């Protein structure tokens, strides 16, 4: 299911390679800097080292305006902003990695951009998806379902009681 990997509203008709990148970028954006450090460590081990890279756009903290819709489905409006961090880099192999992540972790943005670049190498992609993206997606999905599950015992059935004087 789309929502499980951090894609919100839009089911889109995208070419498969774009749909795949959209998914992994969204998964990487949700991973913490610590999780990405671990992932990059695993990649280093699997590839026997990491490629050199040059920052095109050093990690930078900014904001995005968050839009919502009147009534949930109506006219858009500006709800308020949130902090985000972006980064772009180019590996020595020529792949350009990009990241936009919620919050202010520059390390998270840089690591997400690096993994994004590595994933764009078709030769390594299946291996890295299995090594990094799928486990992160599974962990995120589990966290999400655990969070929802904590509210499950508070599910309630209200019933209305017919008052005495109304009874025939």
């Amino acid at each position: 299911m789309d929502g499980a990997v951090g894609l919100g509203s839009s089911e889109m008709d995208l070419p498969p390679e774009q749909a795949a990148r959209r998914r992994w970028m969204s998964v990487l954006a949700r991973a913490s800097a610590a999780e990405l450090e671990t992932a990059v460590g695993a990649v280093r081990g699997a590839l026997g080292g990491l490629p050199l890279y040059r920052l095109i756009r050093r990690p930078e903290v900014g904001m995005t305006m968050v839009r919502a819709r009147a009534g949930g489905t109506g006219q858009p409006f500006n709800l308020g902003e949130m902090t985000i961090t972006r980064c772009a880099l180019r590996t020595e192999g020529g792949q350009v990695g990009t990241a936009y992540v919620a919050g202010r972790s520059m390390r998270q943005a840089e690591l997400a951009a690096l993994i994004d670049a590595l994933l764009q190498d078709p030769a390594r992609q299946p291996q890295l998806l299995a090594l990094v993206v799928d486990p992160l997606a599974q962990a995120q999905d589990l966290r999400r379902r655990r969070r929802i599950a904590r509210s499950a015992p508070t599910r309630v059935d209200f019933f209305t009681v017919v008052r005495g004087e109304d009874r025939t």
Partner: protein
Amino acid sequence: MYVSVKGGERAIAAAHKLLAEERRGDPEVPELTLPQIEQQLSLAVTRVMSEGALYDPELAALAIKQARGDLVEAIFLLRAYRTTLPRFATSLPIDTGRMDVRRRVSATFKDIPGGQVLGPTFDYTHRLLDFDLAEPKPVAAPDAEESEPQAAQPMPSVAAILGQEGLLEPEEPGDESAPLTDLTREPLSFPAGREARLQALARGDEGFLLSLGYSTQRGYGRNHPFAGEIRMGDVTVEIQPEELPFPIGIGEIEVTECQMVNSFKGSKTKPPQFTRGYGLTFGHGERKAMSMALVDRALRCRELGEEPSSPAQDEEFVLYHCDSLEASGFVQHLKLPHYVDFQSELVMVREMRERAAAARKAEAAE
């Protein structure tokens, strides 16, 4: 006119030092950490993010600590900080229909698809002080049942259910390409569009909106509200970076949504049906979301052919006075030295008194 004064630098520096000491309080008591504030005063964090109009729990916690728990001051700090950040993007509209719901109640239907989930609520508590909280306690392990992961159940909005019969006015997206008012970049202008009103209310002071909402219930612009649905949980935020041909998810935010359903007799152009007011806040901000929805509905009076007669229906009154930053700034500036202003007033009052005394004298002589 405000004439500035000079001097007092040393006293001001000393006052700031004293403020820092008072903020810290008794050094024997451990200092608060930001994670403590973020985790254990999360509803204060929610309010500061909502009215500060910037979602970042850690920054909100810092603002609360710096402001010594004065939330209006903390909101000011967050608003000031956001002016230092560039804006990289504007999100796609978040889809609250696909929220990971942790609380969801309807006061209009007891049997709703997806069910009613109380979640973490103060409702139905006895409001008795709990002295067990007075001392820190070890955390109990969660029940096995609670930690069992669950698949998210689809929870269609209550508005969608009522809408199927045409009993509720629809909320249509309208012209998606039309430019949208952004109050962080342009001042309010009147008549304000609904999108400008909703943005102003979302940033608006909870206390002010609560009282205005309450006034509509007491008869000042009555509109017969029902809490059609309140839901709280996490939604994904997606942006469309300019360098990519597709939108990407950047993370999740917690939001609270209130769909108020109001009865409506109908007008010349509209059949009798239920109308709507909408409230949405960052974090878990239920009272604010409900108040916002009541005031949103009241401000829609003109488009629904109702005669505006009460404060909550007065767009200029509500929107010009709902922002705590502006209100607090203007009220509190009265504390600053007004010596020159006051001198001129003093001269004027003395002259008026002399003239009045002279006039009385002349009258007595006649």
